[in-house]
């Protein structure tokens, strides 16, 4: 609700957006400087709320079906916590790098921002590579998408998260390509900020996956 302090004034805010000039002493951070920026971020929050419900549904389905292995390998037999732990560490540090990117963005340091974003991209990509390796390993152990309801539920949930990471990487790629030569402006800032919100969310979901799928799967 803090976003509503000043009710909508598309017309009034727009010229500032075009000029691209924002005084550094002003109270709202750069990503909230324009009406478009405020819209984008509330939109992102709402989208994340909806996505949470989506993931919650997949979690519920997974919990309902995780014992339906139909003779195939169980989670306990499959999961290798060491590997998953490494993946978790990678993803969590990418959250940290994206925070650094946003901090530098607010200081209008485009170069540093891009460097941190690049680091985020690389960490995300290594996470994805590990996940691909992991899935490949499972398939060789006979745990596939079609082998049992457990398989379908597992890959639906974890794979859906993986798809989110992939999409995030594509998005970040587009963001970097577009802004390779540009400064930080109130036009770009909300885009970077929205990405970092998304990225935190994807991380958070992973924390849940780590505990519900892997840890619980190991002890159950």
């Amino acid at each position, binding site marked *: 609700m803090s976003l509503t302090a000043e009710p909508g004034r598309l017309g009034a805010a727009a010229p500032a957006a075009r000029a691209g000039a924002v005084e550094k002493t002003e109270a709202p951070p750069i990503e909230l400087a324009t009406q478009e920026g405020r819209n984008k971020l509330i939109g992102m929050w709402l989208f994340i709320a909806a996505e949470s*419900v989506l993931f919650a549904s997949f979690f519920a*389905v997974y919990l309902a*079906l995780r014992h339906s292995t139909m003779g195939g390998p169980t989670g306990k037999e499959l999961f290798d916590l060491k590997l998953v732990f490494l993946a978790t560490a990678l993803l969590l540090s990418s959250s940290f790098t994206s925070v650094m990117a946003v901090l530098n963005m607010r200081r209008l340091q485009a170069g540093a921002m891009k460097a941190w974003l690049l680091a985020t991209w690389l960490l995300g990509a290594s996470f994805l590579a590990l996940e691909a390796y992991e899935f490949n390993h499972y398939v060789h152990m006979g745990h596939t998408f079609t082998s049992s309801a457990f398989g379908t539920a597992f890959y639906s949930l974890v794979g859906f998260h993986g798809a989110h990471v992939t999409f995030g990487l594509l998005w970040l790629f587009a963001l970097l390509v577009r802004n390779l030569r540009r400064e930080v402006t109130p036009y770009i800032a909300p885009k970077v900020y929205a990405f970092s919100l998304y990225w935190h969310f994807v991380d958070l979901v992973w924390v849940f996956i780590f505990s519900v799928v892997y840890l619980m799967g190991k002890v159950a």
Partner: protein
Amino acid sequence: MTTISVPVGGVRKKSLLWDYLTTVDHKKIAHLYFWTGLVYFLIGGLEALLIRTQLAVPLNHVLDGKAYNEVLAMHGTTMIFFVAMPLLFALMNAVVPLQIGARDLAFPFVNALSYWLYFFGALLTHVSFLTGDVPQGGWTGYFPLAHPDYTGYGMSYYAMGLQLSGLGTLLTGINFVATIVNHRAPGMTYMRMPLFTWTTLIASILTMFAFPPLTAGLFLMIYDQLFGGAAFDPAKGGNPIIWQHLFWIFGHPEVYIVALPAFGIFSEVIPVFSRKRLFGYPAMVVATALIAFFGFMVWVHHMFTVGLGPLANGVFGVATTIIAVPTGIKIFNWIFTMWGGKVRMTSAMLWSVGFIITFVMGGVTGVMMALPPADYQYHDTYFIVAHFHYVLIGGTVFSVFAGAYYWWPKMFGKLLNETLGKIHFWLFFIGFHLTFFIQHFLGLWGMQRRIFTYLPGQGFELPNLVSTIGAYTMALGVIVFAINIVYTFVKGKPAPADPWDGRTLEWATPTPVPEYNFARLPLIRGLDPFWLEKQAGNKTVPPAEPYADIHMPNPSILPFMMSLSLFIAGLGFIFKDQYHPSFLYLALFGVAATLLVMFLRSVIDDEGRHVPRELVEQEDAKGVSA
């Protein structure tokens, strides 16, 4: 409805088609939703007539079992997803920005995307008629019946089509929440928002939380149908009941997604035609929120006979009955808005009064069905069919008709003919009760729903015939409406800006509404702002700002292209199983094209354009004098 717009690069004349394909203007998107929804209403209505014709006499041969199930599934799916919601979205798009004093939605581009996703989702579902595998599993798509092993690939069209249009709906929900939170004119506090805006806000929040479970369910459904998934397949340890939970966790809030905006429309119409402010405004707001809140905790009332046990049945049954309380508050507030007023029985008002009677009848049967031991008898019979047509038609369809008669002058610049409007109402209203009242009894006498025929000698003959006659009477009503529309476009006179002595902000805008809605954003000084200013002797609502350049978004073909790409992807995924594996490439092409469009959208700068101040002033001077 010509509005002068000046693209940054200078004036360019656009064809009407191109204009509508690329528009991001909420008023034009409203038109798109409206006409598309109306066409699907005729299609869904035609399917209803087929259903009723087949059931007119026992052992009839108009449709066989398979064809009947196809028509039935398409009727339910079409009416809920491609008629009820889009028609409400049409009115929301047309009205809500005007009511809160905004120049457009928060995300005009996304708004266009939502429409095109709906358009192509509905189209994808209907492509099934060309391929021969039409959905046969009802609008609820229960597994395992929805698996190709039992009904072919029809239900894949259902799943894919709903996935597309559902994404559009979700985005619409987000868009309206962001708009209403961020784009209210100065002084438009939450407790000064008109109720239609309020119900739009709350229905949009419902959408945000109700559609994701459906999305998850549809993903799993598509996996099971087309990719060898097993979530719902008992042979591989899956559980078909999970689909029912996911569907109804969505499905029950869904019925309020189509009911709450309807309530909002009546809350606009009734005060205007009673010339009295809405009775108990705060209570109306709270009741709306309560209905939405409880709406999430009752889904099991669709599953009382699944065998979830007495505890679940009892708890969800009781929770369901609670919704009667806030709904009752609304009903009585409407009645007492009229009480002591000066009631003008225009067409819009006729639909509103008809709504109160009809909806209450549907609501009280809902409460009866919420009692599990009684529902063991009602469930999956014509009693249910009667209930939900009473609420869906008596609520949503009546509200769309009321809204059409009420807002037509603002949307299309002309007044619908009132005499034809009244004929339309009476034919439809009488036909409606003729069709559906008797169905309560049919259900109790033992007629289950979704049957393509029935045996003679069980007492079902006469009631079914009556019901069929009623359906044709409704069809006559719809034809009169169609005539009215044509007549109005051909012969109707231009409407004044404020034909009904309106109360809310949309009536303070000139007709036709300029592209940017408000030359200067208005200053809101209370509930029913226009009415207040008129009472204070002012001609219109005062401006809150000086004239300035107005920033407007650029039109774009990308929403259309992106939806088209997803449509192609969806078809490809189905065709790969239905026809030939190599259609997978078509699907991958569609996915790639989608990503490409998204990439384009994110790398091409689009900072919009500006309508220059001089032009705004010039148009404003014309508008006020009109």
